């Protein structure tokens, strides 16, 4: 079956018309360089068919050029977030969460097995060199299949049952990847906020590669730069995602010009960027992005003092009141965007816990249901989230087409009586002097919940849960530890329960992988050892021995084999239903809100939005390249 993923025919025609219409407005920032002959005129900088960005959003208007957008980050390494916000990908999500071509002109997908990628003719890297199939070939021949650069083989996402694709270069602008079996994740991985870069700026990286400069010179360069091997130097220079090499050509809207370490990074517009607005003017509108590095705890204070133009990272919900208070004085507005997590915070009973008595209990669905029933979500919502959250189990959000009210409501209404009945039914009827139920072996039921202590929010919610669990005769103790220690304890089965955010992707479509719902990864806190088993190709960890978990594994495999949307949707719903009934994770409150500080002068930032890592790339899929400064609002 042949399926074309393209933008509407309409935009295509517009694009062609525009490319012909020479003499569109040049960004004023570039004019001196163009006048001096250092830069070719717009027509020669754009691909023959640029991507026309036409955002269908109320209050969205074409913008004006100019301005510096100030943002704050907590660490030098966070400069990578500009690659996320820029969100220039081979294919990317649009606001309706459909995957559409971006850098690619189009992509042909045959049964999720054969993908033919068509580049834009005349597309150029930020240094003006052509971006062609040679850049894909360089990645394939000289990076991923080079034993020294990739000693451990291909990235997981390119492998289907441990086999990589066949790679063919059809012509200067066309490449093809084909697998024997379907690889439905491929496009989603290319569209991710931290994508797999299957292309590299070959003309730049060649000078570090022994195949092109000879072993001797490559090694000499490496040792001169303080690297042990040429591969180390190549790796260091070749970090498109880390965004820490100002010399590395890029396809993003803004180019980082500041090397690490610094407390102030300046990014300037990419004169060869491939997107234009409906008037044919090259994007981005904003000339420069200034990223200041500051202690992360200070970022709310600095945002409140009006030292940013756009900021969400490091702002927390409880900063809202403070930010709102200074809104007028410092001329910005605070928006509340929805986070796309399945649950702002969820409890993960560890089905692989060491302790046999607890393991038996954790694996008993009645026990998990009782725990979930005994949480007063309403109180937590009122106390911690100002009543703005939604009391829910850990499932997908209402925005998702896969949402069903019964998933949200399953076992998530406070009902102490039912919870007590369930526990009594488990035979846990004996109690000690303090009223705690006793385990069959006579120990009191003290559940220790491991937390990574990220925020006081976690401690507070646990405190509230502790109180209502006490009423069903179960004590809760929180044990904070550092993230690494936290993870190790869960993985090794030492932690009996842990607390973390819920589903990462709460707004899935049937085309997105339901991987999170089945035991597939060690980092799944409810069944780390089963996850490890599948992550390592059925070695290591433990094989699951519960029928429902095996069913999830089977369903996930079926999804991977399926190329039919209706079938995928059925699989998703089935998996979500199992999760809702089995209460593998105990969600608490969802639709948590993320404050976003936006300068009054900044336009085209949606008033309501989703703040999501994948899909979404945070600001990325709202097209930061179309944000612009209205000089009237500028202080």
């Amino acid at each position, binding site marked *: 079956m042949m399926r074309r993923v393209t933008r509407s025919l309409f935009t295509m025609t517009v694009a062609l018309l525009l490319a012909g219409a020479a003499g569109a407005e040049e960004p004023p920032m570039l004019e001196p360089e163009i006048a001096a002959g250092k830069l070719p005129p717009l027509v020669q900088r754009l691909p023959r068919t640029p991507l026309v960005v036409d955002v269908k959003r109320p209050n969205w208007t074409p913008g004006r050029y100019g301005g510096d957008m100030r943002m704050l980050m907590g660490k030098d390494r966070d400069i990578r977030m500009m690659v996320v916000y820029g969100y220039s990908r081979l294919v990317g999500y649009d606001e309706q969460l459909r995957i559409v071509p971006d850098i690619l002109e189009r992509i042909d997908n045959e049964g999720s097995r054969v993908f033919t990628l068509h580049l834009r003719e005349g597309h150029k890297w930020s240094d003006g060199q052509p971006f062609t199939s040679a850049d894909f070939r360089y990645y394939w021949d000289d990076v991923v299949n080079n034993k020294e650069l990739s000693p451990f083989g291909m990235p997981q996402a390119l492998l289907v049952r441990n086999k990589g694709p066949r790679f063919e270069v059809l012509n200067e602008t066309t490449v093809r990847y084909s697998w024997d079996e379907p690889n439905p994740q491929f496009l989603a991985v290319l569209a991710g906020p931290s994508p797999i870069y299957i292309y590299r700026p070959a003309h730049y990286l060649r000078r570090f590669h022994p195949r092109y400069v000879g072993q001797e010179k490559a090694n000499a360069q490496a040792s001169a730069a303080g690297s042990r091997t040429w591969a180390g130097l190549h790796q*260091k220079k070749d*970090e498109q995602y880390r965004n820490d090499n100002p010399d590395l050509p890029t396809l993003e809207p803004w180019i980082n010009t500041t090397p690490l370490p610094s407390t102030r990074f300046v990014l300037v517009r990419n004169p060869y960027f491939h997107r234009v607005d409906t008037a044919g003017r090259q994007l981005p509108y904003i000339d420069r992005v200034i990223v200041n590095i500051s202690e992360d*705890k200070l970022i709310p204070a600095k945002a409140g003092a009006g030292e940013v133009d756009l900021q969400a990272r490091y702002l927390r919900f409880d900063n809202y009141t403070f930010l709102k208070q200074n809104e007028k004085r410092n001329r910005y507005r605070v928006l509340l965007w929805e986070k796309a997590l399945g649950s702002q915070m969820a409890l993960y009973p560890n089905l692989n816990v060491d302790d046999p008595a607890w393991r038996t209990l954790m694996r008993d669905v009645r026990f998990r249901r009782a725990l979930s029933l005994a949480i007063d979500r309403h109180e937590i919502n009122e106390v911690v989230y100002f009543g703005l959250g939604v009391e829910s189990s850990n499932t997908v959000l209402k925005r998702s087409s896969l949402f069903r009210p019964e998933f949200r409501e399953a076992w998530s209404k406070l009902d102490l009586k039912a919870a007590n009945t369930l526990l009594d039914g488990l035979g846990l009827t004996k109690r000690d002097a303090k009223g705690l139920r006793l385990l069959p072996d006579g120990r009191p039921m003290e559940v220790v919940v491991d937390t990574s202590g990220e925020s006081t929010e976690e401690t507070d919610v646990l405190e509230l849960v502790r109180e209502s669990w006490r009423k069903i005769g179960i004590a809760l103790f929180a044990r904070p530890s550092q993230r690494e220690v*936290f993870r190790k304890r869960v993985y090794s089965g030492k932690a009996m329960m842990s607390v973390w955010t819920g589903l*990462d992707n709460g707004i899935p479509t049937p085309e997105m992988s339901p991987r999170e719902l089945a035991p597939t990864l060690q980092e799944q806190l409810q069944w780390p050892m089963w996850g490890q088993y599948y992550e390592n190709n059925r070695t290591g960890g433990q094989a699951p021995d519960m029928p429902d978990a095996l069913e999830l594994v089977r369903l996930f495999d079926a999804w991977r084999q399926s190329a039919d949307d209706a079938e995928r949707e059925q699989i998703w719903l089935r998996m979500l239903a199992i999760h809702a009934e089995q209460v593998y994770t105990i969600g608490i409150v969802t639709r948590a809100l993320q404050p976003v500080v936006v300068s009054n002068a900044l336009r085209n930032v949606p008033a309501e939005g989703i703040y999501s890592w994948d899909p979404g790339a945070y600001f990325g899929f709202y097209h930061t390249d179309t944000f612009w400064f209205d000089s009237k609002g500028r202080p």
Partner: protein
Amino acid sequence: MMLRYVVNRLLLMIPTMIAISIIVFVIIQLPPGNYLESYIAELQAQGESVDPQKIAFLREYYGLDKPLLQQYLHWVGGMLRGDFGYSFEFNLPVTKVIGDRMLLTIIVSGVTILFTWAVAFPIGIYSATHLYSWGDYGLSLLGFLGIAIPNFMLALVMMYLANVYFGTSIGGLMGPEFIGKPWSWAKTQSVLEHAWIPVIVIGTHSTAGMIRRLRANLLDELQKQYVVTARAKGLSPRKVLFKYPLRMALNFFISEIGSILPHIISGTEITAVVLSLPTAGPMLLNALKSQDMYLAGSFLMFLALMIVVGVLVSDLALVALDPRIRLQGGVAR
């Protein structure tokens, strides 16, 4: 005699430095896990994922798969050759990472030390000469307040107030628009606008200790026979104070000069973190937290070396200045 003493001291420094290097290495290895693990954990906390293949590559490239002893020898061997290792976090040699921050650190510390002395000196003398007067109590109270108010609280409140009332941008050592620009009058002004907060916060903290030591030393001296004699002979109080006792009491300034700089660098990390100063402290703390071991390790070694050398210098200065120590042949720090 003097030469032998110096050589002896220098020789003793070798085992000390070896011991310190071992402790430093142990310290940076003590927390469970390593850089890559905390790196993965941090990314996952933000919802990002990492490719296991790449982690495997980095583990091998950074040598984190080698036994500890080998890692240690590699590090120490490198340092002897002037190679301080590689910062994982910044993907750069350690020297390049630290370099920029050191200058600012030294400027901030220097100003702070001057501030401390300027405040502590008169107060200490006054307190010692006006024992148990209201002035003594009041000034000591002021000094102790500096110790008693936790630095992070003071820094945060002052910074907030400075922003609300003077419009000073929050944190840092200058307005963000001046970072990386050449020095100009406006930049200097901006630095002055920002720098007074850390100087006061850090300065008040060390002032009290200084006052107390000056007061105690001066009191000791003032009880001595020669002072009584001088006073009995009718020397003016001012002269009695300044001729010898004060000079003797000042010995401790010299004995501390060596250790004061490193301690100001390391002892003020918390303030520097709260104020987001671009100094060495926050970087050291971050390196320790993220287990960027060569950055943290070389940083610590550098501080330790400064202290050890500083102590040596101040001991030598004392020997040179104070005949009593020289004649007794021993050195008290």
